């Protein structure tokens, strides 16, 4: 790669950037307004949104990266790069990431989603963040009059962000590579911040708030509180009797089963939707602790049979046997009490 060709490329790309920067900034503004409004409407008041359009120097540096073989890493950087417009949502704690993620999935076409927590070594503390590559839905794009370029979006907690920022500066912006000792101390700090995150969640719970249960009204009323009300109604229980944690767990189950509204969830239960109080009485004869959400989950197991396991990605024979044994036992108990 001759120096002159790199310079020539920079000149061409700079001209392209100058021609398109208004379009990129318009996309940034539209995305920021659109997602910001949705976050406010969902009452995710503690979530903080930041957006940016890639600067020209940052673009030129990336667009003229070498491939190590005398060519350029990106043959068509204007078409290949996906980070012209970026956004980041910072939430207080890691448990608050999920409501924002659900909102994003509902609002946009998600082309990629990568959970950097899941991809990294699970037994070593380190970088944690949820990354999306999203586009506006066609109708929104047309209404807003913006381009079809994707937007890169990160969702992470404040503590995850603090660690990632410091780590990035030390690892990539210093004049020399960090020593093993420095890397070790960074990893230790990640562990410390993860513990702090857990402790903050414990404090929040102790204070009476529910971790991971920010008001996600965008769920059309079938948020955690909505799931609890639905489950308690089905089981014939009084309202607000079970801890919200049970409804949160049931909501996760329902999502895995493809139900995001009360009607969809009721449909999954089939005839068991009418037999909730009967099922609750039978189960509580031997499991007096059984909450409404537990009873409803059992109803879903009975109603869906093997499909329940398929949706929840259980394939090993031990899991299938245990499931069959349990549902058979519940049916027998119901018949015995009939």
């Amino acid at each position: 790669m001759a120096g002159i060709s790199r310079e020539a490329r920079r000149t061409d790309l700079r001209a392209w950037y100058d021609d398109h920067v208004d379009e990129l900034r318009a996309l940034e503004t539209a995305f920021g307004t659109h997602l910001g409004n949705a976050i406010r409407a969902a009452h995710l008041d503690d979530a903080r949104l930041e957006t940016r359009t890639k600067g020209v120097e940052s673009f030129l540096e990336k667009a003229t990266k070498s491939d190590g073989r005398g060519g350029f890493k990106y043959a068509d950087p204007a078409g290949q790069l996906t980070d012209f417009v970026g956004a980041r949502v910072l939430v207080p704690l890691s448990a608050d990431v999920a409501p924002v993620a659900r909102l994003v999935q509902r609002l946009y076409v998600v082309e990629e989603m990568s959970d950097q927590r899941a991809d990294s070594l699970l037994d070593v503390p380190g970088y944690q963040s949820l990354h999306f590559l999203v586009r506006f839905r066609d109708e929104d794009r047309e209404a807003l009059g913006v381009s079809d370029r994707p937007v890169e979006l990160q969702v992470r907690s404040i503590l995850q962000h603090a660690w990632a920022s410091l780590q990035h500066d030390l690892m990539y912006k210093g004049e020399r590579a960090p020593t093993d000792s420095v890397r070790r101390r960074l990893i230790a700090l990640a562990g410390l911040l993860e513990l702090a995150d857990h402790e903050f969640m414990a404090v929040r719970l102790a204070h009476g708030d529910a971790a991971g249960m920010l008001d996600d009204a965008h769920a059309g009323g079938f948020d955690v509180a909505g799931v609890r009300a639905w489950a308690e109604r089905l089981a014939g229980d009084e309202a607000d009797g079970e801890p919200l944690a049970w409804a949160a767990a049931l909501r996760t189950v329902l999502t895995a089963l493809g139900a995001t509204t009360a009607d969809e969830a009721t449909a999954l239960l089939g005839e068991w939707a009418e037999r909730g109080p009967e099922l609750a009485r039978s189960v509580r004869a031997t499991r007096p602790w059984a909450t409404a959400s537990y009873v409803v989950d059992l109803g879903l197991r009975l109603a869906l049979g093997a499909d329940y396991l398929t949706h929840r990605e259980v394939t090993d024979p031990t899991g299938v046997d245990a499931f069959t044994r349990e549902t058979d036992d519940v049916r027998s108990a119901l018949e015995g009490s009939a």
Partner: protein
Amino acid sequence: MSERVCVVAGAGAWPFYLATGAWVGQENRRFGDATRLGFYSGRQVQGLAPLIRAAVASVPLAAEDAATRALSADPTERRVGEALAAALHDGATAARVSVVLLSPPDDPATASFEPVAHEADTAWTMFQRFVDLDRLRTATSTADLGSG
């Protein structure tokens, strides 16, 4: 060689096992080389020694953990969650506990024998003691169990 049984003390452990098929107690509790648990309460070693099927050394005793695990699709996780939920329902208050999943009372894998009475004035154990299963099967009183 006879199987080793770790006989745990505690008035609540025995009914809890009968109700749930599990033992929930002190975090990081060690059971040595025992493959079974026994229960000492009411001045006798109770007449069942279930197999230890799975053990979780340390888990938060909280509604969040109970709920998430009890609604898990994994059968072991589900049983751990159910045991936590039962412990919470019974009023247990430790921050973290150990959970041991056992063969249920009516499971053929659960060894049964005549309850072994304890006749001395002092408790046979206030924590846990190890005995051979064969000895439990033949003993008529804890004096026949020796020192373990």
